[in-house]
């Protein structure tokens, strides 16, 4: 059985994008090791509310590592340090030690303004997808699914690229605030599939242009994004995006 631990929690409070923000602190006592990080924050919030205070605001929903909602910067790492790719909601308190200090901050990036506390606005990601992150396929009567044969290897690779949950940890980790890992994962998924080829050039250009327009920085190959991505997206995707992008530009 897991042990209980006690620790000091420092958590970021910020009342809207213009507020300067500050840390609040609290001693958390006897938290069981099999509590998830977000359940620990639920406990914090129960305490705060029972004292008549406003709860600590953070995004979360599925709590299974798939919706991409949770987005906490824990002890200097997006989603905290876990052994393999995992999201904030998949982090368990058994990974911390008795007497630790745990610091919780929001994603900090020009592309993601703070709404409240650790809840940030990531609608920029939707805008990038809207610029071209799709195959234009009319609803109705497409051809039989098996009419397009796709080698298993390509399908698997496309699936890996498609696993991105749009959490934004890559942006939060990047000193330039670049969204290249996110963008390149979508571009790669569709570039690897025959259905995506016809629009490949247009897609790469449109998504990169939108990303630049929305204030995300350039990629300087520091690989910080890859290290924190909970879905283990690879920077090989960025190389592929660059190839697609250059090819598209050459054809202009």
């Amino acid at each position, binding site marked *: 059985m897991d042990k209980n631990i006690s620790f000091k929690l420092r958590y970021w409070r910020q009342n809207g994008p213009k507020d300067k923000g500050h840390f609040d602190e609290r001693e958390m006592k006897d938290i069981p090791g099999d509590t998830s990080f977000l359940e620990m924050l639920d406990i914090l919030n129960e305490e705060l509310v029972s004292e008549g205070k406003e709860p600590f605001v953070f995004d979360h929903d599925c709590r299974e590592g798939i919706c991409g909602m949770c987005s906490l910067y824990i002890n200097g790492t997006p989603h905290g340090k876990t052994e393999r790719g995992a999201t904030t909601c998949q982090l368990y308190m058994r990974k911390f030690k008795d007497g630790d200090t745990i610091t919780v901050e929001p994603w900090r990036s020009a592309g993601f303004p703070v709404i409240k506390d650790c809840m940030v606005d990531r609608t920029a990601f939707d805008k990038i997808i809207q610029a071209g992150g799709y195959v234009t396929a009319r609803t109705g009567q497409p051809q039989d699914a098996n009419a397009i044969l796709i080698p*298993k290897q390509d399908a698997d690779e496309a699936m890996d690229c498609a696993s991105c949950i749009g959490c934004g940890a890559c942006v939060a980790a990047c000193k330039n605030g670049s969204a290249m890992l996110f963008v390149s994962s979508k571009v790669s998924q569709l570039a690897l599939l025959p259905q995506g080829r016809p629009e490949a050039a247009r897609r790469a250009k449109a998504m990169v242009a939108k990303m630049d327009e929305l204030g995300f920085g350039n990629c300087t190959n520091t690989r910080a994004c890859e290290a924190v991505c909970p879905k283990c997206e690879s920077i090989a995707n960025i190389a592929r995006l660059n190839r697609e992008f250059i090819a598209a530009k050459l054809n202009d």
Partner: protein
Amino acid sequence: MATLDSKIPAGPVAEKWTNYKAHQKLVNPANKRRLDVIVVGTGLAGASAAASLGEMGFRVFNFCIQDSPRRAHSIAAQGGINAAKNYQNDGDSVYRLFYDTVKGGDYRAREANVYRLAEVSNSIIDQCVAQGVPFAREYGGMLANRSFGGAQVSRTFYAKGQTGQQLLLGAYSALSCQVNAGTVKLYTRYEMMDLVIVDGRARGIIARNLVTGKLERFAAHAVVIATGGYGNAYFLSTNAMGCNCSAAMQCYRKGAYFANPAYVQIHPTCIPVHGDKQSKLTLMSESLRNDGRIWVPKKKEDALKLQKGEIQGSDIPEEDRDYYLERRYPAFGNLVPRDVASRAAKERCDAGMGVNNTGLAVFLDFSESINRLGIDIVLQRYGNLFDMYEEITDVNPGELAKEINGVKYYHPMMIYPAIHYTMGGIWVDYELQTTVKGLFAIGECNFSDHGANRLGASALMQGLADGYFVLPYTIQNYLADQITVPRFSTELPEFAEAEKNVQDLINRLMNIKGKKSVDSIHKELGHVMWEYVGMGRTEEGLKIGLQKLKEIRKDFENNLFIPGTTEGVNIELEKALRLNDFITMGELIAYDALNRNESCGGHFREEYQTEEGEAKRDDENFFYVACWEYQGSDDKAPVLYKEPLVYEAIKVQTRNYKS
């Protein structure tokens, strides 16, 4: 009372949908531009509907409570989606998928709807592939399939353990394409607060901007709700934290009938509850039952030792294990439908055979399949699920535990049933229109296709069928009569009144200023629901449950505390508004469960079972859809109307998974 006309088209079941489409009214392209549709929800149902309607040329307003449409709860579905493609050449057909779904639903679904679902299932797969959904493939490049509970064919398409994610991202990309084209306008972090009815027709909604806290009005020619299921009425469930039944309850209070609320699905393979701090339960995909074997000890003393932590599952040799599903249901074994598997687990645990410290868990074991297939193949199939299980419990099911008499035993998983899906929902006719004109309901929030129990991989199918292939046709039959109706002003008194009612409710809740947090009351609600309105229901228990629900409502109204103000983000207020509706929902479930004096599918009344403990249906008295009408106040009991079920193509039988 509203009329209950199911509008099932004439003709043999296999021709109904074709006939319907041939004769329905259509809206011409120039008129489509003048018609507005509100779609609430961006899950599989909502996103696919909004995208399709936008593409057809309607002007669409699409709402969701998350920060992005891509985060709707559908994203969490793991296992797969059914279709009658018969790619495996194992004898599948539209009829067989239809038949399995009706049988799996314990003969409580509407035949015509289910047939249509099976009929369009193949188009869904084609559509998703065209969008670039990376389904699993075989080496030859063709699509791969797996089998799921309740079926003897392999018809489930999947994308690793992330099928819902990939399907939703497909629908999200179609939606994004329409947003770019200007046909769909998105409202994220907006929550529907009420339905606005003008002259007896749904004409708009009041929504709360969750960032500013302001109430806003939206008008349209028709309203579609696609807001998901009500499983979180039980507090602990596999649903995402934000899943709620508020939009459905708002429609119910405005006159939409609520059908079959008692049909709640309990999923057999969830990670057992570990403490009182837990906020949600994690599902382990049902696909695990393809290769995992479910068991408990044969001997009570072994179970006791397991409960005390003196021994581990792997210490118990083969001959002392009771593979109770294989024993009781030789034909389907570990692949019996969910309700059957869940009850069987409860039966063993009630008999004292539970295997964890709470006595509320059974084993799911991969030793046999690892020994047969090799660890590599098993990891290829379930590796990410094993990882997920280890992340949560610190136990790795792919790890060798010990050898007894030359047999290798691996650490088994522990699982237990949990609330997962709700078959009941807003009543809709064949056109997916509710009893309120101009109000449509799609996806999990309607009651339509699963009867008393949903088969695995059929919810995704239904959501996308509704959104891509059914609603876009049927809604035109309604909108064709609306082309002369000009756009509405949100200054109409009906909008002002609806907004005022919402504002009053918010003020009332803010001003209670009691001592209890929303979650603490929600937990009590969940406890009562699980205890008295859960897996095994009795008349007596349901009556106690209803009494306790009244007490919870009182507690809520007198002791609730919401910190902060109505301006800006207030997560406690959001939760309180949803809890208000969960309590009403809980009562509705209990009323329906009390009325249905039979056991069928997900609804099990202990008084109605065979000597072997199997569910006993009563087709003579309960062969109907129970439709509940709101009586103007949450304190009044709802009134029941019945939609009789008519079966023409299928002979109603006792469900049998034994032989």
